[in-house]
């Protein structure tokens, strides 16, 4: 599948606290964030960040609090104005838009889901769901029909006349999700959208989100501090520390080759061996010979499937790509080695 970039972010900076041109000069001269704060009192929120988000993927931005991830998501719909750099959405640089163009862009192309839900307490569930359409000037009948349709999709239709405070947290955030979906955006920004929910509700909301993605693919930019969540829903994950992007990659890439200790620390409490795939389990020493013997699996085959295939067969398991090319062999000992490596990493860091 050919993918095109939905968002391209180039050398993006955000400086808080004035003196921005001075701070920019210092940053270009290679000064550190802490030194700049000491000298100018300005905080560098986002520091030379570049990445791109592909059309239709769920791009999860991870980081601890204070890493700048909430700032970065707000730069993308310009709730905050970047100090320097480019944000190219569908080929257009949106950092140059004037106020009117920006309002149009927000109404037409993007919507946002908030950690605190940010529903309007004076509006019913239906009116909250239709909020974005109302702001865009859609007439009452059309917007209520559309809002109702999306409420039905997430199973909230019978609560349409209720008010937010009459709903549980999980249901309120479903309304928040509906409000964002009702405007049919091509890009959805989700800022710690499920972080305020209890773990069970969080998983439920992730399932709803994945289900909605299967029905209608959208580009989702998702900010989270929860690695399990990122691994579960993320097509790709970006990890941010101190205003910089440390690593961008698929969940497997990040698990397999964490860029530094900061990234590794995220995995401390997570059993990463669950996310191993066939291509990660290949026995390093064995020569690759295209032997016709034995079964073969695709490179993305999950660990449980590999184990099942491996049981009760003496020959090594072949890993073959889509063209039938043999990439390597999996033996019981290579699987055991890999799993124990991951487990030892986990326990060692506890």
């Amino acid at each position, binding site marked *: 599948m050919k993918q095109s970039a939905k968002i391209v972010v180039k050398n993006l900076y955000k400086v808080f606290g004035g003196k921005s041109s001075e701070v920019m000069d210092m940053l270009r001269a290679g000064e550190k964030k802490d030194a700049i704060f000491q000298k100018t009192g300005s905080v560098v929120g986002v520091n030379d960040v570049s990445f791109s988000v592909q059309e239709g993927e769920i791009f999860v931005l991870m980081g601890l609090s204070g890493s700048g991830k909430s700032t970065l998501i707000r730069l993308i719909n310009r*709730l905050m104005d970047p100090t320097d750099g480019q944000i190219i959405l569908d080929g257009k640089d949106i950092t140059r838009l004037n106020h009117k163009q920006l309002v149009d862009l927000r109404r037409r192309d993007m919507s946002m889901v908030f950690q605190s*839900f940010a529903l309007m307490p004076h509006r019913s569930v239906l009116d909250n769901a239709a909020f974005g359409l109302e702001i865009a000037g859609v007439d009452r009948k059309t917007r209520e029909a559309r809002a109702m349709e999306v409420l039905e999709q997430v199973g909230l239709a019978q609560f349409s006349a209720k008010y937010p405070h009459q709903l549980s947290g999980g249901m309120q955030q479903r309304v928040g999700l509906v409000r964002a979906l009702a405007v049919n955006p091509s890009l959805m920004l989700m800022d710690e959208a499920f972080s305020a929910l209890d773990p069970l509700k969080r998983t439920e909301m992730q399932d709803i989100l994945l289900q909605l993605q299967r029905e209608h693919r959208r580009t989702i930019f998702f900010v989270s501090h929860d690695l399990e969540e990122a691994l579960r829903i993320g097509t790709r994950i970006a990890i941010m520390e101190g205003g910089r992007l440390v690593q961008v990659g698929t969940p497997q890439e990040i698990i397999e080759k964490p860029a530094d200790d900061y990234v590794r620390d995220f995995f401390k409490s997570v059993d990463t061996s669950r996310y191993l795939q066939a291509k990660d389990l290949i026995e390093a020493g064995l020569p690759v010979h295209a032997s016709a013997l034995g079964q073969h699996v695709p490179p993305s085959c999950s660990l449980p499937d590999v184990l099942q295939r491996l049981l009760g067969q003496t020959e090594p398991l072949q890993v073959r790509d889509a063209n039938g090319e043999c990439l390597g062999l999996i033996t019981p000992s290579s699987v055991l080695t890999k799993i124990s490596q991951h487990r030892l990493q986990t326990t060692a860091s506890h």
Partner: protein
Amino acid sequence: MADASTQDMLPIGDWVNEIIHFMLDHNAGAFDAIGNSIDWFANMVEFVLLGIPPLIMGGIFVAVGLWRLGWKFAVFVVAALGLIWATGFWSQTIATLALTLSATCVSLVLGVPVGIWCARNKIVNTVVRPVLDFMQTMPAFVYLIPAAMFFGLGRVPGILATVVFAVPPAVRLTNLGIRQVNKEQVEAGHAFGCTSWQLLFKVQLPIALPSIMAGVNQTIMMALSMVIIASMVGAGGLGNDVLASIQRLDVGLGFESGLAVVLLAIILDRITESFGASPSARSEQGS
């Protein structure tokens, strides 16, 4: 007083006198226009309220009390209004109510927009805050006298002096209410493409409504207490009786008229307070 201030190093008093006289000499037309429109408005309010027969007027109060706060409060309203009627202060009480409502209307028309402006603009807020402090703490008599100089004795200076005193809570609580709107709710407004006006009318003001209603409540209470003092410049109503009781050292009259003020205050306070109830109470009403 003027003699004393001439010897001061900083003769602020003299400057104020100069300014007042300058304004009296040069802007009389403007003051007349303001005075006339306020007089017309206050006259109309009083005419309407006094035109309603006491029984119907009382019925309206009881009905609103019953609707907003239940039968216990309705019983209290009946007893309170009965007491006012029986002590013979009905028409003065209605006149005071008319003055209070006129002053409240003017205060809100001025105060709420200024409050919104303060919430949206740091500089305005910085300038307005000390002005509000000034308006609230400057002893009332100090501006009652110039008000009478500008507008002559009667209702108009009384209402304007009352407005000076009653505007601050309207400004403050509107400002506070808008500032207290959750940051993410404002962001949600922006994120869905609100214009500045849409943000104000569809997000900020509705969410700030309980606070603004608390401001309305405070404004009414301030206005009620001030219209009594304003009787010194001839504003009329219950204040006349209070003033007469002081002049004649008639403690009994003072207590009766004062009691009518207190009862009217309680009724207005509880009713307006109920309109500022939390959104949950409001939605329970609606559903």
